[in-house]
């Protein structure tokens, strides 16, 4: 087995032993329970409410759990000098980085499958599969972002905060741009500057609002072009984060 695959395997083992599976079960129970409770107070669209709410909670929860796990795991390895030990072996920095990313990504795929299965309660299998595959791509991006920030910032809290900031901004940037482009009062120069700033920030962010949409579960699956464009954009941004992380990792003096 190649060293990168060995690293990926050890990363999966670490996740299994760290209680992550229990957190997944807890998140599933909380999301499904809350969705079921709220659907009881809805006068109509109970099924849609359950699906939309469970999908939204599981999507956000999966991203948070994964980001926190990656950041804590990377920082712990650095503090325990496991990183130095690994790099003393015949293993290049790129192999180490990509091996860790492969392991974390496999956890993300596991999350996507576990959280996609309950969607079969409310959506047809095709829509649920598309949603789940999109969640897997989104979690791949979260893994890459969290690994990048954990390696670069070398602290758990700043790494989680930076990943959460990037994730939340990427999910809301399209709506923020829409807000900025339709002012309720006459436009002033400050508003034009603000809009320019928002548009500039948007250039640096992925369109997470276009991926893993709960509307796919409620109404109809997306058009093939729209779906592939959304997933392609996620994979491209994951590659960008991976390149940035490797760049920083290669420059670091250990």
């Amino acid at each position: 087995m190649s060293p990168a695959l060995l690293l990926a395997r050890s990363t999966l083992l670490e996740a299994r032993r760290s209680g992550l599976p229990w957190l997944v079960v807890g998140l599933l129970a909380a999301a499904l329970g809350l969705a079921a409770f709220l659907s009881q107070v809805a006068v109509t669209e109970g099924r849609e409410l359950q699906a939309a709410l469970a999908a939204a909670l599981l999507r956000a929860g999966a991203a948070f759990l994964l980001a926190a796990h990656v950041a804590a795991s990377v920082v712990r390895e650095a503090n325990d000098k496991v990183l130095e030990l690994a790099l003393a072996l015949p293993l290049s920095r790129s192999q180490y980085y990509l091996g860790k990313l492969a392991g974390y990504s496999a956890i993300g795929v596991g999350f996507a499958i576990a959280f996609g299965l309950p969607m079969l309660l409310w959506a047809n299998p095709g829509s649920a599969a598309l949603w789940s595959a999109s969640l897997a791509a989104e979690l791949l991006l979260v893994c890459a972002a969290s690994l990048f920030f954990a390696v670069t910032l070398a602290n758990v809290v700043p790494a989680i905060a930076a990943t959460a900031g990037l994730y939340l901004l990427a999910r809301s940037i399209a709506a923020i741009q829409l807000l900025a482009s339709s002012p309720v009062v006459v436009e002033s120069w400050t508003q034009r500057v603000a809009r320019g700033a928002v548009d500039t920030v948007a250039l640096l962010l992925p369109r997470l609002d276009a991926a893993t949409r709960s509307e796919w579960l409620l109404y109809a699956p997306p058009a093939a072009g729209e779906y592939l464009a959304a997933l392609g954009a996620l994979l491209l941004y994951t590659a960008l984060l991976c390149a940035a992380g490797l760049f920083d990792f290669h420059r670091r003096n250990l």
Partner: protein
Amino acid sequence: MSARERPLSAVPLWLWALLGTTLAVQIGLRAVGPPPAATAADLPPAPRAAALRAASLGEPAAAARLAMLYLQAFDLGAGNALPYSRLDYTRLRAWLRAIQDTDPRSAYPLFSAARVYAEVEDPARARAMLAFIHEAYREDPNRRWPALAHAALLAKHRLKDLPLARRYATDLQRLTTDPGVPLWAKQMEVFILEDMNELEAAKIMLGGMLASGRLEDPGERRFLKERLEELERRMASEQRRN
């Protein structure tokens, strides 16, 4: 007990006491305190649909439905100091508009507008809600026709405004092109002009909705059944009075 833990006897007595006391005080305070107050405040101004979308973090379908549940808390909850019949309908309409724009495919805002907010005794408020339903219907007739069909019935039987009911009925016939729409809705104007009372008309509507497979939601079925029974009771008591 895992091997990494010391026995419970290793914990000092004062710490047991502190833990027990603080826990008892916490539970006691919560038990004797007043229960959470029902939402009695007036409805706050509605957010813009764009703001609601931004706050939804890319989950407009979930946000729109949660916003509807929030809006419901201003009316359906028992013990509210401000029942929905006294709500500020200008704000209410703005809320429903924002929610509908956040998820245009959701039927929840128009269902509530037609079945809850338009059925108030105050004609001015009912008319405001019917106008909202009509406006929203014209944006997507094939999806939103059930709300306008009910609005036409309300205009005829509650507001006694036959011209308004006929205007809605004409629009319903003219703009709704979906072949799955029941016959009575396609011939709404005739349906409105027929000499039948509100209960008969409501029963035909409900039967048609059930037959067309539009009433799959158990909550919605239950709600409409309760409304029908309420209407039955009301009409029976009116007949007894007459």
